[in-house]
C-alpha cells in the first residue's frame, strides 16, 4: 500500500474548477516532484492533500485511511507536514517560539522525534537566531525556519511548496543539501517546484501538472533524458 495516495480528485476555489481528476501516489521514503508552470495547480494539489482546500470529489488516503474532509490539524497529526510557498513564519514570534508552537504534543510519533536541538543541527543558522523575531530573518532563514517548524511535528511525509522560490543561488544550494540530508534520514518528501535543477538530484519521480491535470509521470532519470517533455510543459 502506498504511503499517500491521491486518486481522481477535483478541487475548486469556490466556483472555479482548478484540479481535474488528478491522481498521484507517494511511496514511503520516496522524493516525488510536482513540476509545472505558474498556475499549473501545484499549490492547489498540496493544499488539497493537507486539507486547506479539500477536494470535492475523489479520495486521498494515508496508509489506506481516507483523510478527505478531516480538518487540517487532524491531517497534520496523522503525519502530513506542510511547508507553504510563501513561508509564513509567525513574524511576531521568535525562532524558538515558532518551533515551540509546532512541537508535537499529540501521540508518540517516530522513535527518534525531532527536537529543537536536532533541527538546529540541521539548520545551524537558526541556532544563532534563536531569540530573534521570525519577521526579522532573511528569506533563506525564514524558509529554513518553516521547514524546521514543520519537522517539530514529526511528520512521516513532508510536502514542500516551492521551497527554492525567491532565494539566492547560494542559499538554494544550502537548502538542497539540507533536503538531501532529510531524504537520507528516510523522510518521505513531496516537492512542488518550478526549478528543475533544484530537484534533479533530489527527486526519484516526477509528475508534471498543467491546467490542473497530470500531463506526465515517470522516473527522474527518464524525465531528465526527455528534452521534449521539458520543452512542452516547463519551458517558458
Amino acid at each position, binding site marked *: 500500500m502506498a504511503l499517500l495516495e491521491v486518486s481522481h480528485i477535483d478541487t475548486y476555489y469556490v466556483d472555479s474548477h482548478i484540479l481535474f481528476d488528478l491522481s498521484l501516489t507517494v511511496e514511503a521514503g520516496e522524493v516525488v516532484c510536482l513540476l509545472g508552470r505558474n498556475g499549473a495547480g501545484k499549490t492547489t494539489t498540496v493544499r488539497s492533500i*493537507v486539507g*486547506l482546500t479539500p477536494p470535492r470529489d475523489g479520495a486521498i488516503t494515508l496508509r489506506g485511511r481516507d483523510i478527505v474532509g478531516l480538518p487540517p*490539524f487532524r491531517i497534520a497529526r496523522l503525519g502530513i507536514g506542510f511547508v*507553504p510557498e510563501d513561508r509564513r513564519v*509567525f513574524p511576531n514570534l521568535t525562532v524558538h517560539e515558532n518551533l515551540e*508552537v509546532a512541537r508535537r504534543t499529540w501521540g508518540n510519533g517516530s522513535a527518534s522525534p525531532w527536537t529543537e536541538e536536532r533541527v538546529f543541527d540541521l539548520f545551524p543558522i537558526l541556532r544563532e537566531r534563536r531569540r530573534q523575531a521570525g519577521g526579522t530573518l532573511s528569506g533563506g532563514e525564514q524558509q529554513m525556519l518553516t521547514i524546521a517548524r514543520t519537522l517539530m511535528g514529526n511528520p512521516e511525509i513532508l510536502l514542500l511548496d516551492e521551497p527554492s522560490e525567491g532565494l539566492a543561488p547560494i542559499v538554494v544550494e544550502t537548502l538542497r543539501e539540507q533536503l538531501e540530508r532529510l531524504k537520507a534520514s528516510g523522510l518521505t518528501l513531496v516537492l512542488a517546484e518550478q526549478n528543475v535543477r533544484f530537484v534533479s538530484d533530489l527527486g526519484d519521480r516526477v509528475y508534471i501538472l498543467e491546467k490542473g491535470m497530470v500531463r506526465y509521470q515517470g522516473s527522474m532519470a527518464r524525465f531528465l533524458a526527455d528534452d521534449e517533455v521539458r520543452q512542452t510543459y516547463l519551458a517558458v
Partner: protein
Amino acid sequence: MSGLSVGMFLFLVSVGMSLIFGVTRIVNLAHGSFYMVGAYLMVTLVEVLPDRPWAFWLALVAAPLGVAVLGGAIEVGLLRLIYHRDPLMQLILTFGLILVISTLVLLVWGPDNKSVSRPDALAGSVLIFGQRFPSYYLLVLGLAPVVAVGLWLIFYRTRWGMLIRAATVDREMLGALGVNVAALYTQVFAFGSWLAGLGGALAAPTVAVALGMDGDVLTTAFVVVVIGGLGSFAGSFISALLVGLLQSFGILVFPAVSIVLLFAIMAVVLIVRPWGLLGRPEE
C-alpha cells in the same frame, strides 16, 4: 485614586475584549455584559456564602469563573457558527447577546440595584499624603500590576501564550501545524470573558450593581481598545490607564464634557494612527 481603580476595571475588561478580537477577529459587543454578569454573580455569591471572612474571596474567585464558563458556552454554541460570516452578522449576533443577557439578568436578579459590601479587612480607609482613601481601592490598585505581570507571563512565557500570539497572525498556518485552533478559540474566549468577569466582580463593591452597567463599560472599553490598538495587549493596558485617569480628572474639572473628550481623543488617535497606539496595521 478612584480614577486609577476605574482604570483597572477598564483594563481588565478591555484587555479581554482586545484579546478576543486579536484572536477571533470578533468585536464582542457583549463583553460589557460579561462584566455585568460578573458583578451580579458576586452579589449572589456573597449573599449565599456563609458570613465568614473568606466568603468574599471565594466569591471573587468563583464569580469570574462562572463568567468564563458562560463565555465558553457562548463561543461553542453561537460564535463558532459565524466566524466565516461577514462582520455585520457578527455585530448583530453579539448585539443580540447584549439584549438577551440583560433580559436574563433582569429576570434573575430583578430591576433593583444591588450592592456588595467590602470585606471587613478592607472596609476602612487609609491615610496617604494626608488624604483618606478607601482601603479597598488599594487592593484593586495592588492587583493591577499582579494581573498585568501575570498576563505578560502567560503571553510571553507559556506555550499557550505563544499559540495565542501565533493565532493572531495566521490561524490557517497554525492549524496546518497540528494545532486545534477551534479549541484555542474557545479557550481564548473563555479567558477573555474571565477577565471581564473579574473586572465586574472586583468593581461590584465600589459601584451600584445595576442593569445599565454593561453599556457604560462597553462604550469606554471599546474606546480603550480602539485607542490602544485592537489586539494589542500592551496598548490596552496603557490606554486603559490613560482613559481611567482622564475620566476621573475630566469629571472633576469639567464633568459635562468628559465623555466628549474621550471620543475626541479616540478620533485623534484614529486619524494619526488608524491601527491604534500599539496595534499593527492590517495588511
